[in-house]
C-alpha cells in the first residue's frame, strides 16, 4: 500500500483551486483564438478578443479570471493500492478553505438553499470519489460558477425520441441559456444511466480534455452533430450573435433501462477553469 498524507492532499487541493482561478487551460485559450479567427461578425470578434486578453491579465497579474470563483467541485480517482487513513472530504474542504482565503477568491456558498447564510469559507465542496487500479491518486478540481450551472438541464426522454430528441433538447437548452451562461460554451452531455447517473455523466464529460473525442463511435458522431447544430444557432459570444456558440461538445454515455433515455446537459461557460494533478 502507498500512503498519501493528509497534508499532501490538503496542499494539492489548495494549489489546484488557486491556480484554476487565475490560469485558463491552454487548450481553451487556443479554442478561443481559433473562434476569433473564423468570426466574421465584428462585435463577436471583439468580445472574443476581450475574453482572450482577460485571461492573459489574470494569469500575469494573479487576478481571478472571473469574480464567480464558484462552488469547488472535486473528482478523486483513488488507486486500489493507495491508503488514506483520514476523512477525505474533510481534507478536501480544508484545502478549499485555504485556497479561497489565500487566493482572495469569492466565497459563494450558503449553508442551506432557503436559509441562505454564507458559510464564509466556500465549503463544503462537492466531492466525487471513484476507485481505479494502481497506486496513484488523481485529483480533478474545478471552481464551477453559477451562471452556466443554473442554465444546465436534465430530461428523461422516451427511447423513441432517439438522436433527434437529444438534439432538440440540447439546442433548446442552449437557446434558453442565451447570453446568461457566458457563451462560447463547453457542453458536457450525459446520455443513459438513470436520473442521478446521467447528471454525473454530464459533469464528468466537462472534465475531459478539450481536444479529445469520445471513444464510442455513436457518442463521437453525436458530439460532431451537436457541435454543428449549436454553432448554427447564432446565439454567439455573450448571446449577441456569431459563429461560435460552443467551443466543444463532450458526450459520455452509459447503459440504461429498456424504457429510458435520460439526457443531461451541463453547461460550462468560457471561463472553463479546471486543473488536474496525479500524485
Amino acid at each position, binding site marked *: 500500500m502507498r500512503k498519501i498524507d493528509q497534508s499532501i492532499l490538503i496542499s494539492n487541493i489548495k494549489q489546484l483551486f488557486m491556480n484554476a482561478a487565475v490560469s485558463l487551460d491552454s487548450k481553451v485559450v487556443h479554442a478561443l483564438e481559433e473562434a476569433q479567427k473564423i468570426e466574421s461578425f465584428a462585435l463577436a470578434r471583439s468580445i472574443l478578443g476581450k475574453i482572450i*486578453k482577460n485571461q492573459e491579465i489574470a494569469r500575469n497579474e494573479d*487576478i*481571478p479570471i472571473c469574480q464567480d*470563483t464558484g462552488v469547488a467541485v472535486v473528482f478523486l480517482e483513488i488507486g486500489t493500492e493507495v491508503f488514506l487513513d483520514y476523512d477525505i472530504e474533510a481534507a478536501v474542504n480544508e484545502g478549499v478553505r485555504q485556497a479561497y482565503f489565500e487566493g482572495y477568491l469569492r466565497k459563494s456558498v450558503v449553508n442551506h438553499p432557503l436559509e441562505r447564510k454564507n458559510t464564509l469559507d466556500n465549503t463544503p465542496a462537492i466531492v466525487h470519489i471513484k476507485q481505479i487500479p494502481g497506486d496513484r491518486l488523481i485529483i480533478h478540481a474545478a471552481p464551477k460558477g453559477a451562471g452556466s450551472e443554473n442554465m444546465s438541464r436534465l430530461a428523461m426522454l422516451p427511447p423513441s425520441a432517439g438522436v433527434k430528441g437529444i438534439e432538440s433538447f440540447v439546442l433548446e437548452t442552449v437557446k434558453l441559456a*442565451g447570453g446568461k451562461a457566458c457563451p462560447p460554451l463547453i457542453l458536457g452531455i450525459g446520455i443513459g444511466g438513470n436520473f442521478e447517473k446521467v447528471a454525473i455523466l454530464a459533469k464528468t464529460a466537462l472534465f475531459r480534455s478539450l481536444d479529445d473525442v469520445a471513444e464510442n463511435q455513436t457518442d463521437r458522431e453525436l458530439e460532431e452533430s451537436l457541435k454543428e447544430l449549436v454553432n448554427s444557432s447564432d446565439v454567439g459570444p455573450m448571446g449577441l450573435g456569431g459563429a461560435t456558440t460552443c467551443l466543444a461538445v463532450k458526450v459520455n454515455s452509459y447503459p440504461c433501462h429498456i424504457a429510458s433515455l435520460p439526457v443531461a446537459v451541463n453547461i460550462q461557460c468560457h471561463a472553463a477553469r479546471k486543473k488536474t494533478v496525479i500524485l
Partner: protein
Amino acid sequence: MKRITTPINEETRLSLRAGEEVIISGKIYTGRDAAHKRFVEHLSANGSLPFDFNEQIIYYTGPTPEKPGMPIGACGPTSSYRMDPYSIQLMPMGMKIMIGKGERDKAFQSKLVETKSVYLIAIGGIGAILSKTVKSSKTLLYEDLSSEAVRELEVVDFPVIVAYDACGNSIFK
C-alpha cells in the same frame, strides 16, 4: 463609441440605443441578489429606498475580495434575470439604469419601457480586465453581505453595450 459620465440625466439616458457601445466614467453602485431583496423589503416597510438611485447606475456584481493595495478584485457582471422580480418594483422608484449580463423576462422588459429605463450589459467572465477600470471602492450599505454588499465604485472607462433601450429595442438574438 459614446462616452458618458455619471450622474446620467434623463436626456442622456433616453438617447442610448440598443447595440451602441458606451464607455462610463464616474461613480457607479454595486448590488445583486441579496441587496435587491433588502431594497424591496426596505421599500415595502418605508415606502422609499435606502439610497436615491435617480440618475445613478446600479451594477450587478459580487467582486472577489481585494488584495492588499488594490481597490477591488475581479468584478464582472452577474446574470440579470435573477433581479427581474425586484427591478420591476425598483425602476418606478428611480433605479432606471442597470448593468448586468444576459436576457431578462417579458415583465421586466415592459416595465422598462413604461418607466423609460435602460438595461446595459458588460461582457461576462472578464472580471480581471474590468477590475482595472475601478479606481476606488467603498462599502455603502449592508457590509454583512460581504461580496454582495452595496459598494460605491469610482470607475474610469468602464465598457458596456446597450442591451435594451427605453424604446424597447433589444440587442439579443
